[in-house]
């Protein structure tokens, strides 16, 4: 088959949870050799699951996706079977080493010398504590490209501040801007956008740095401050404050200008449809599409400005209509009239969606320890260098042989010793509770 664009690039992947692994997935998908650096001793929280070895009873009790192993059975190697990990670990390689010991650090430095990029998304203290900062690593490899993804940046008063994604988003203003406008701010659920923004942004940053190095031979360090990247995406909202002294509030499901614009209840349990009408021309088509009931001719709804002012009344009428229909009926009818509308999708809806099927978006993959399932596929289509899921999610230590024998060129005796010392293996050795190293 043809070449993939990023073949020949080696990336050491020292990432956890979602943001970092998302970035490396985008690069692995298009041909970069991404090697996950993991350990048999340290189980980073919420990466390969919540616990290394939950028993089946516990897995069934855990809420949400936490215990959603295949058939809810953790299996003999639960860390190779978790839904948090497997979707992003495709097309990657994996090795193990214990970085808390000098021998492990020595091996890691050797690997750095053979690699183009190192990416990590631990808290700001983590690499410092390991003595593996850019200052140290670039002495081993002067043209290294290293990316760190700290929450708030590698400098400043909040450098060592701790929090989950929702905490960082709170500081950035996203939590404030996502609330029911007529509700209590305290009842907003925690939902995250930061991982998505950081993953995509970091992949771009890495490629920009690699492109520069291709021309000049120079590497560099990239401080990917997740909070700062995130705030780009609400730029115009934040700018209203220095521009006009206005500190915007959440509009909920409404829009600064468009009406109707919202989420309406449908037939069926917990079924909802989106309807967004952009202008007067669309409004005319909307009136036709819903069968021209008398209420649409109300003077309060005659033009955009009036519809905006009388949104509560408008929404009540629309909801009375949507409640009689299923979301797909509404989508077909309104999209047929050139109006933005569609269901709030459930997982089942996405797996059976005719458009995603026609596009071949989900790919069936057989994993040696997790079974055969559909997974979200490649994030964009390239007409000449098409990518696919070529390898299932990498298992812990799966490519130790390749890394230690072929890349590091160690002898059989050396490898056997490292195996005996607990650097090399495929089974987690630590205690059954995760080491909260990042706390």
């Amino acid at each position, binding site marked *: 088959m043809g070449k993939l664009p990023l073949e020949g690039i080696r990336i050491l992947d020292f990432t956890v949870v979602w943001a970092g692994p998302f970035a490396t997935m985008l690069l692995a998908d298009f041909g970069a050799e991404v090697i996950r650096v993991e350990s048999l001793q340290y189980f980073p929280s919420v990466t390969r699951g919540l616990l290394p070895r939950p028993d089946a009873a516990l897995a069934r009790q855990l809420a949400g996706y936490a215990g959603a192993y295949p058939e809810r059975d953790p299996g003999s190697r639960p860390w190779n079977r978790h839904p948090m990990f497997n979707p992003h670990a495709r097309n990657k390689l994996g090795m193990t080493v214990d970085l808390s010991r000098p021998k492990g650090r020595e091996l890691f430095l050797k690997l750095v010398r053979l690699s183009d990029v190192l990416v990590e998304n631990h808290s700001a203290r983590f690499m410092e504590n390991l003595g593996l900062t850019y200052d140290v690593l670039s002495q081993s490899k002067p043209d290294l490209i290293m990316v760190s993804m700290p929450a708030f940046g590698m400098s400043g008063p909040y450098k060592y501040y701790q929090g989950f994604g929702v905490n960082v988003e709170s500081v950035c203003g996203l939590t404030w801007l996502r609330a029911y406008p007529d509700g209590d701010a305290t009842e907003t659920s925690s939902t995250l956008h930061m991982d998505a923004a950081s993953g995509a942004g970091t992949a771009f940053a890495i490629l920009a740095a690699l492109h520069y190095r291709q021309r000049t031979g120079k590497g560099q360090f*990239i401080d990917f401050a997740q909070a700062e990247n995130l705030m780009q995406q609400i730029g115009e909202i934040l700018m209203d404050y220095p521009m006009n002294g206005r500190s915007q509030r959440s509009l909920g499901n409404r829009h600064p200008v468009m009406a109707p614009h919202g989420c309406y209840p449908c037939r069926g349990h917990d079924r909802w449809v989106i309807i967004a009408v952009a202008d007067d021309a669309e409004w005319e088509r909307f009136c036709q599409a819903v069968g021209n009931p008398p209420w649409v001719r109300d003077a309060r709804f005659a033009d955009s400005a009036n519809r905006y002012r009388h949104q509560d009344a408008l929404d009540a009428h629309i909801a009375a209509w949507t409640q009689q229909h299923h979301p797909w009926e509404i989508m077909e009818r309104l999209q047929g009239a050139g109006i933005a509308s569609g269901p709030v999708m459930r997982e089942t809806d996405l797996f059976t969606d005719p458009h995603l099927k026609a596009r071949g978006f989900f790919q069936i993959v057989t994993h040696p320890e997790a079974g055969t399932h559909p997974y979200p596929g490649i994030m964009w289509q390239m007409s000449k260098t098409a990518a696919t899921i070529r390898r299932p999610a990498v298992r812990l230590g799966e490519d130790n042989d390749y890394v230690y024998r072929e890349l590091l060129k160690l002898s059989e005796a050396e490898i056997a010793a490292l195996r005996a010392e607990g650097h090399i293996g495929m089974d987690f050795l630590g205690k059954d509770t995760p080491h909260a190293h990042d706390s």
Partner: protein
Amino acid sequence: MAGTSRYPSRTGGVLTAVAHHHEWYLSPFDRNGRGNAMADTALADITVLDLTHHIAGPYCTKLLADFGADVIKIERPDGGDPARRYGPFPHDEPHPEKSALFLHLNTNKRGVTLNLKTSAGRDLFKALVQGVDVLVENFSPRVMPHLGLAYETLEALNPRLVMMSISNFGQTGPYRDYRAQDILIYAMGGPMRATGVAEREPLKMAGNLMQYQAGTMAATAAMVGIFAARLHGIGQHIDLSLFETHVGTVDRRSTYLTAYAYAGEESTRQSQGPQGALPRGIYPCLDGYICIYVTDEWWPRLAHMLERPDLLTDPRFATPLARRNPEHQPEFDAIFYPWLLERTKQEIMERAQAARVLLTAVNTPEDVLHDRHFQARGFFVEVEHPVAGCVTQPGAPFRMTATPWSVRRPAPRLGQHNEEIYGGRLGLSREELVVLREQGAI
């Protein structure tokens, strides 16, 4: 000549083996030798023709421009990019050169006008496309072929062109011509069903996040395309669908989908609330709200933050079992709420972080602009614009030590660079430009 020499293939590929001047990697379109002269920006030798409008496309090309690419933004002569009509505006007075959205999204780009509905306009476009590395467009999928400017036509003019097409649902498929807004992309492609509280409707995310996110993905995709062109001499068409990039996003989305495939687990809406006495979620304080998450392991830190060592031995809170007892929640709240209500969010956050409690302020935009961390980092920058004046806007999305982000020029005025581009790049004379203007082509 650049482009004819290929990088030799190697086993175990490490590009670092080639440490010297990579002539073969330079663009044949780098007319001004900017690739060498401006080695202090990462993407100096990349030229982009930017046919995008509104948010997703322009954010993609903003990322490329902000890190050094030469981006030529094409706008229709009558009114330009629709984003010019979106606020906020200074004093809420709409003005096409003063839109905060437009000013933020279009830094570092040069701007020309062009009417693709005229044949003279299309001829100009074809002349321009021959000399660029990348074309980015985010029209609905019918538009480019309808204009006679489909990829196959442009490939014949420029075989190494990377054409990046951004659309709501992709260039093919049953939903191809469907309309979308940010809320719809989030509902169909994002975890909207799991956002909000169970008792109410699902809730969208702030602002235009879905479109910005697609822009970031597109910038990454464009770079992958550039690598294919530079390393392998392959130009191609890239089809990026907002719907798909969101469905496949690695966060709760891919996790929920796989949890369903593995175990039939569906996502649900739940508000984040405390677990017994363990505080979690958003709480009110003196001047607003804070966001907190405490586990059993971190209870001692919370006690320390509250200066209540007695909480460690109080039988209501001393053990994990006791803490998770729902009856003890109001008793802890009776201690916690008053403590919070006496202090500002900033004060609480600083005390919490000193005690290593996972707690942050829920900042409003006003708070964000005054925040001492972002001020110390110099995150917000002031950009001088000839019409809008001095505008405060977000700065670097990330910091590259060797090739830092910078604003080399503010967002362009409509048609600002017509002479520079059509004259300088295509060699047209002033008279010719006058004719084109009269024809309505520019």
